[in-house]
């Protein structure tokens, strides 16, 4: 049974289409990374899954029910983002102490452990925390709640590099002990890459790619060498990105549809076969033109 099942999902705000005819399913107990550019529709999609927004068209099922105004979904889901609303009159210690009333699987020991580790103090108030500390506190709520559906919408905003790393490791460790369905949205794919099961890449509100993360690494390959040779190699596949280097040499990121022997042969002919970092690949897949920012400057 799928935890999330969307079909033809569409959401518009006035004239803007934030989510456009999106169809996908999420199987239980997997970590899915939701990746997209600014304004790609990530947050809108997550809010529809959480039941905060109603779609204009299409259908969405969470735990086989319509999530909007749904007690079953609310009780089994936590949505963590920058703007989590928590009672202003309660300090952090009081918020942690009462969280168990709302979340059936709440692990207080884990919450307190992380709370101390991240150097938070029970007497502090949520609204007075720095951006990074607030994100850390929200992330603790998201982890310790152990909800069957856990949604993190850019959870690491403002966190420093060390805290981000610790948070992702904490997520992985707790996930292994208590498997659940996790959706993690982020700009920084390289950071979350290794802990993901699947990747959902969206562009302009549409699905661009939904694959197991292991396949992403083999999805594209970088070729660098003589323009003539590379262009010929690229004929049989799809070019995702190109960049001219020097006089007659060129770099291209292309879909990897080559057999191992072909790449071997090219290597002996002097073509450099390079990996395409997953971050770069996602950037190429969501770019509007093949040359990227350089196209703006090369126009005249």
């Amino acid at each position: 049974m799928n935890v999330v099942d969307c079909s033809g999902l569409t959401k518009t705000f006035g004239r803007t289409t934030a989510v456009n005819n999106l169809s996908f399913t999420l199987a239980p107990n997997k970590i899915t990374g939701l990746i997209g550019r600014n304004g790609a529709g990530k947050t809108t999609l997550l809010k529809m899954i959480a039941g905060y927004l109603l779609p204009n068209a299409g259908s969405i099922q969470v735990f086989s029910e319509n999530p909007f105004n749904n007690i079953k979904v609310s009780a089994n889901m936590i949505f963590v983002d920058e703007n989590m609303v928590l009672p202003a009159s309660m300090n952090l210690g009081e918020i942690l102490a009462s969280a168990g009333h709302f979340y059936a699987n709440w692990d207080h020991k884990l919450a307190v452990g992380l709370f101390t580790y991240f150097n938070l103090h029970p007497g502090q108030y949520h609204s007075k925390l720095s951006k990074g500390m607030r994100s850390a506190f929200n992330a603790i709520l998201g982890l310790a709640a152990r909800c069957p559906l856990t949604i993190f919408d850019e959870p690491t905003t403002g966190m420093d590099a060390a805290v981000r790393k610790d948070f992702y490791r904490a997520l992985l460790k707790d996930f292994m002990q208590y498997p659940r369905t996790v959706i993690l949205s982020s700009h920084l794919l390289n950071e979350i890459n290794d802990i993901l099961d699947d990747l959902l890449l969206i562009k302009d509100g549409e699905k661009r790619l939904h694959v197991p993360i292991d396949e992403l690494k083999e999805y594209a390959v970088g070729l660098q060498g003589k323009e003539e040779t590379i262009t010929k190699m690229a004929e049989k596949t799809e070019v995702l990105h190109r960049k001219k280097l020097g006089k007659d040499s060129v770099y291209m990121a292309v879909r990897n549809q080559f057999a191992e022997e072909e790449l071997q042969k090219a290597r002996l002919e002097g073509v450099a076969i390079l990996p395409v970092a997953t971050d770069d690949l996602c950037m190429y897949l969501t770019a509007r033109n093949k040359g990227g920012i350089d196209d703006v400057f090369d126009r005249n």
Partner: protein
Amino acid sequence: MLLDTDSLKPIYVQIAEWLEMEILNGNIASDEKMYSQYQLADMFNVNPATAAKGLNILADEKLLYKKRGLGMFVASHARAAIRSKRIKRNLKQLVLELVAEAKRLDVGKDDLINMLIAAELQETEEGAQ
């Protein structure tokens, strides 16, 4: 232990190769228990499904066998099998690239062989120290 995220090789392949090295080095002997997918996921900080995929590569090649309820164990012929596989795949490939580079640099056959012998000598000396 760190993974090379910049490598062309998928993470699960890197894990499989690391496990092969563990067997080759004798760190895990025949009929000894192999790491579990969760131990590997924790060690490499990767998703447990990715770790399982790495283990499965070895299991598919019959380098590991399953004991019901106990996990995966190293097959008795695993070490020899990994050795001959590495000679066939890695070493041959390296030699091909070596020969191609020598050709590009116009280094003759005898010079190349002399370089190999010198390298071999150096390696044994370093090993003896």
